[in-house]
């Protein structure tokens, strides 16, 4: 009896679990989770996301604990009514089911982002919107890269039911180049949920690495003279403009691209609440309590998708490579378009260093523009100028996401 009990207990230990076939994978993933925690805590790489993601990865790879198990509803089906008796499942699995697979969490985060965003610098210099457009090239280049990789024999993103079509994966990988976490999670959870872990980790990692990835590209593409361009001081933007702008963006989106309206709608709802000034209770809650709660649950959920069998795979390397390419190309195109705009029009010159901020990665990319600028002229503060393309990048990647959500399900059917 006692020995039965001990045997039973032994068979429920993690050590026993790791020694089962495939158990080593869980062990490795737990180490990866630890690595994320290390980077988040010691290196301060996007800690708000990587701490929950890393911890979620560890918890979800514990043998027998089933913390990432899907929800089960137990009850009686009578006619058209399901009388619920019990809800069960792993706690992170439930967060995932109701918050991520449903698309709720990234949208709620977007409300909070909206409530924190000031479109003032963009409105003071609207042409910087185009820099936010250029930087989205990275998304589509990575999409093409994914399709190309899939042609390599023996390497496949879709085999084994991992995705509905290569386009579904390609769109999701591409969106890493959007450099916007909630957008990446929203699109991937819709198109290729099996890749959610790898893609979210890649997106947040590269966003954390923006200060390392971007400066060499920015310097390579610009002359010292260009880097020293001083931009005109931004004009004062009235409150009315700031109130009308979010509504206007939403309207353009309604008319042209309804598939992007959940993302842009949530963003602009948060922004309107902030700018209107009449519902500060609500906008404060959106950017604080509500956003923090959702960030915790979203991070853990994303971590729970870092399952050994899906993550410990050569495709993950592919995702990391393509994501890096997407970031690099986005940065490049942003800088190049700024140079082109200067070439076309001499008045109101643009410092091309702010072009790189168009990838989004708010506010990191704008800070990088500022920092590189200061290296060459320690009185040239580019931060506010770079905030324009920076927030334009958020709109740009939401638009790109809308296109992907509209076309991929049709062509990848």
């Amino acid at each position, binding site marked *: 009896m006692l020995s039965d009990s001990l045997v039973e207990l032994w068979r429920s230990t993690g050590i026993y679990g790791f020694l089962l076939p495939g158990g080593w994978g869980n062990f490795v993933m737990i180490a990866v989770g630890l690595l994320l925690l290390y980077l988040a805590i010691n290196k301060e790489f996007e800690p708000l996301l990587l701490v929950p993601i890393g911890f979620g990865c560890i918890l979800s790879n514990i043998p027998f604990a089933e913390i990432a198990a899907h929800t089960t509803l137990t009850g009686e089906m009578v006619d058209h009514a399901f009388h619920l008796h019990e809800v069960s499942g792993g706690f992170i699995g439930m967060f995932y089911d109701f918050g991520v697979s449903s698309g709720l969490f990234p949208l709620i985060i977007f409300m909070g982002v909206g409530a924190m965003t000031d479109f003032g610098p963009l*409105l003071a210099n609207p042409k910087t*919107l185009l820099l936010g457009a250029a930087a*989205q090239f990275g998304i589509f280049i990575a999409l093409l890269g994914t399709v190309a990789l899939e042609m390599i024999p023996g390497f496949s993103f879709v085999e084994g039911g991992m995705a509905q079509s290569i*386009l579904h994966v390609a769109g999701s990988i591409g969106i890493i180049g959007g450099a916007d976490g909630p957008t990446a999670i929203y699109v991937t959870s819709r198109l290729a949920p099996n890749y959610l872990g790898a893609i979210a980790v890649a997106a947040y990692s590269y966003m954390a690495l923006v200060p390392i990835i971007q400066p060499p590209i920015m310097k390579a593409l610009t002359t010292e003279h260009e880097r020293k361009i001083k931009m005109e001081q931004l004009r004062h*933007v009235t409150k009315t*403009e700031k109130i009308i702008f979010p509504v206007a963006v939403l309207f*353009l989106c309604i008319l042209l691209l309804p598939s992007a309206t959940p993302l842009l709608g949530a963003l602009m709802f948060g922004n309107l609440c902030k700018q209107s000034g009449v519902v500060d209770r609500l906008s404060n809650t959106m950017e604080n309590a509500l956003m923090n709660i959702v960030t915790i649950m979203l991070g853990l959920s994303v971590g729970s998708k870092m399952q050994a069998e899906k993550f410990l795979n050569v495709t993950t390397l592919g995702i990391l490579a393509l994501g890096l390419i997407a970031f690099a190309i986005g940065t490049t195109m942003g800088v190049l378009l700024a140079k082109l705009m200067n070439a076309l029009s001499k008045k109101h010159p643009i410092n091309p260093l702010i072009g790189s901020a168009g990838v989004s990665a708010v506010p990191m990319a704008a800070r990088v523009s500022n920092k590189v600028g200061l290296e060459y002229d320690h009185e040239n503060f580019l931060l506010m100028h770079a905030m324009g393309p920076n927030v*334009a990048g958020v709109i740009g990647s939401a638009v790109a996401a809308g296109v992907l959500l509209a076309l991929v399900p049709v062509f990848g059917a």
Partner: protein
Amino acid sequence: MGVGLTITVVGMLVVFSFLALLVVFSRLMSVIIVKFFPEAEEPEKPVRRTVGSADTDVAVAIAAVKAFTKS
């Protein structure tokens, strides 16, 4: 690959058109607003605050300031 290219072309087209339209619109809006609805030279309204304890905190602190500094 063909489909991928198509999506790429269409996608960048849409992204650029969308943001270019937004440039035009923003300019237009700003011109109209600045011309027809100029911001009154009102003394910036004090930012409204969430109902809650934070307000009273500041009130308490400022009251304290006044009390301490009056003497």
